[in-house]
């Protein structure tokens, strides 16, 4: 390139080019909105401690993803060959979610579920939210694959939502992942009013029998029988359920403590950082700020409501058949939507509001972990029908 004006011309040309490359020059109102959303996420995580381990990486990822840049420099998450694109590979190909499930398995104690197996059924009933949202999404004109991916938000399980979306509707990844994690963080806000609305004061005061002690053999048998029983029926849930039960066996066998420690410690931390950051960065304003994303957010909220409704009402239904001493406090029904352990904490919190000595946490952990299994099974079914 020739610069007729000499050095000064050369300098102004490059300065102009530099200005064109800055974020200020490429900024749109959408980018500003998304950066503000990212900042809100970080604020909520730090001040209110709403799922900080997820909201901080996602919020910061949103900022990273929405700093505008001159296209073609292999910087953005959607630009092939960029570093962020390589990291995003694990999201878009469903690599990270099974690894997170491995960690969840290695940190989850299924004792509450084993000691009172009937609580598993609450975990099944709470999956109603998935299919309620699926039907509504179809009604709103989403394709069946997209409807399936949106529905899984109701499972209140971020990794499961990412896994299924990567297979069925990767184009909706940002909206679905952010929606799923946001509502998981907002469980303490969404669920209590529904729980109170659906239960009577008498029901909220029900005291459940303390869980019995669970033997080591039972704990070891659980992951082995768990994978055989679930995956023989729904093999498509294998990536998630296989890793979940494997992680749990590492923990319960007690002979692989080092592996269990790695799975529930450094491994899950690394994957959480990568998944949170890349999911956040995938919410680039030009792909994320659409009416479709807003519909997904609305459907996500409805699915959470339906799921909570399903869990609580199922407890009330099952109580009709149980003896007076064995009744289930319907306040643990909300915990059927995975969101471990936040939804169980909500049960405990609401329970204590009505009786300061009635601790529901241990009981709520049963449907809570059953919800993880239930949502992974539901994802497997959606995958086998729609993929």
């Amino acid at each position, binding site marked *: 390139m020739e610069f007729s004006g000499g050095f000064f011309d050369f300098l102004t040309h490059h300065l102009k080019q530099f200005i064109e490359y800055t974020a200020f020059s490429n900024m749109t109102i959408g980018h500003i909105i998304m950066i503000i959303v990212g900042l809100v996420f970080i604020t909520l995580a730090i001040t209110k401690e709403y799922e900080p381990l997820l909201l901080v990486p996602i919020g910061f990822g949103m900022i990273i993803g929405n700093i505008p840049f001159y296209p073609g420099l292999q910087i953005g998450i959607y630009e092939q060959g960029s570093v962020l694109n390589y990291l995003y590979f694990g999201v878009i190909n469903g690599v990270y979610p099974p690894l997170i499930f491995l960690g969840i398995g290695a940190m989850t104690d299924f004792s509450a*579920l*084993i*000691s009172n*197996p*009937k609580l*598993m*059924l609450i*975990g*099944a009933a709470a*999956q*109603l939210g*998935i*299919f*309620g949202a*699926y*039907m509504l999404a*179809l*009604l709103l004109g989403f*394709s*069946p*694959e997209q*409807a*399936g991916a949106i529905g899984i938000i109701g499972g209140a399980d971020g990794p499961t939502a990412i896994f299924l979306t990567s297979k*069925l509707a990767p184009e909706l990844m940002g909206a679905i992942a952010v929606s799923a994690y946001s509502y998981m963080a907002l469980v303490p806000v969404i669920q209590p009013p529904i729980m109170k609305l659906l239960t009577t004061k008498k029901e909220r005061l029900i005291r459940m029998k*303390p*869980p*019995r*002690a*669970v*033997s080591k*053999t*039972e704990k070891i*048998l*659980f992951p082995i*029988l*768990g994978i055989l*029983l*679930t995956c023989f*029926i*729904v093999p498509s849930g294998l990536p998630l359920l296989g890793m979940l039960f494997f992680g749990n066996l590492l923990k319960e066998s007690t002979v692989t403590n080092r592996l269990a420690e790695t799975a529930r410690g450094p491994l899950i931390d690394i994957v959480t950082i990568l998944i949170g950051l890349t999911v956040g960065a995938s919410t680039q304003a030009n792909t994320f700020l659409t009416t479709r994303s807003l519909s997904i957010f609305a459907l996500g909220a409805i699915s959470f409501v339906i799921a909570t409704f399903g869990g609580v009402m199922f407890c009330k239904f099952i109580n009709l058949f149980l003896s007076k001493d064995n009744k289930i406090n319907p306040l643990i029904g909300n915990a059927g939507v995975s969101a471990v352990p936040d939804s169980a904490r909500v049960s405990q919190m609401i329970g204590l509001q009505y009786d300061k000595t009635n601790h529901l946490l*241990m009981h709520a952990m049963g449907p809570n972990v*059953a919800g993880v*299994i*239930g949502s992974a*099974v*539901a994802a497997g*079914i*959606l995958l086998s*029908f*729609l*993929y």
Partner: protein
Amino acid sequence: MIKHNQKILIPLIVSFLLVFKSFYGLSQSHTNLKINEILILNENGITNEKAQHAPWIEIFNSAYNSVNIGGFYITDDPNNLKKYLIPKNSQKTIIPKRGYIILWADGDLSQGVLHTSFKLDTSSHFLALVEPNGRKIIDSLTLPKFQPDISYSRKNDGENIWEYKVNVSPGMANSTSNEPSAAQTFIQYDPTGIGMAIIAITVVFIVLILLYIVFNNISKLYSLDMKKKKLIKKGKIEEASVIKGDTTGEVSAAIAMALHLYSEQLHDEENAVLTIKRVSKNYSPWNSKIYGIRQFDRKIW
């Protein structure tokens, strides 16, 4: 250091794995290989290495792992299943997962491992792919009458419906992908999604009910009452009477708390006697500043 029993155990495991692998590998291959498409009167289609329009056979691997057909037999004679042994030790005979391989039935072995020793023509009426043992047929078919450049193929890869095909597809999928996807088919019959909801919720319930049934019974098996009953059956009533019911988590927590409080309270009451111990600081060259600081010659400065 490897212990003696480990020395025995490791080769055992390795040999078991090798046996398992070979068995598994065979079981994967011999059920998943299919003769997928045949063209005998090849007049204007694809050509072999010598640029000849020769008859060809397409084999499809319906498995999700690659399969090597080296060592298998292919034949057009039902009385001689070992008519042509596909050579081993060649990379060319590996069929990738869900992939295809073309064998030239031109009777010209000089062109490489993918050419059969026999030539298919309009008089041929049988074709079979046979296991390496030369006895068990993996897939076979009776050849129909052929017309020029029209193949005889499975309608969809690996499926059992055969048809004549004008648009031959050697090394490619047999079906043209105008067919609706699984999701589109599903939505055609279930536009509201109610069917999906009913089926899926039922399956989720079945899975978790199964787990419930199993663990409900396992908990009974492992409950202490069973031990008690066994002891009573054996006549050990005294031992049985010692066994109490399950200790609940709450009871365990209460016991732990009581023990904790007890151990904490052991030192609660002090004897209120103050002892002032004389602290003397003895000289030691190890902490002496004289030896700790470098002594510089001030005269130099």
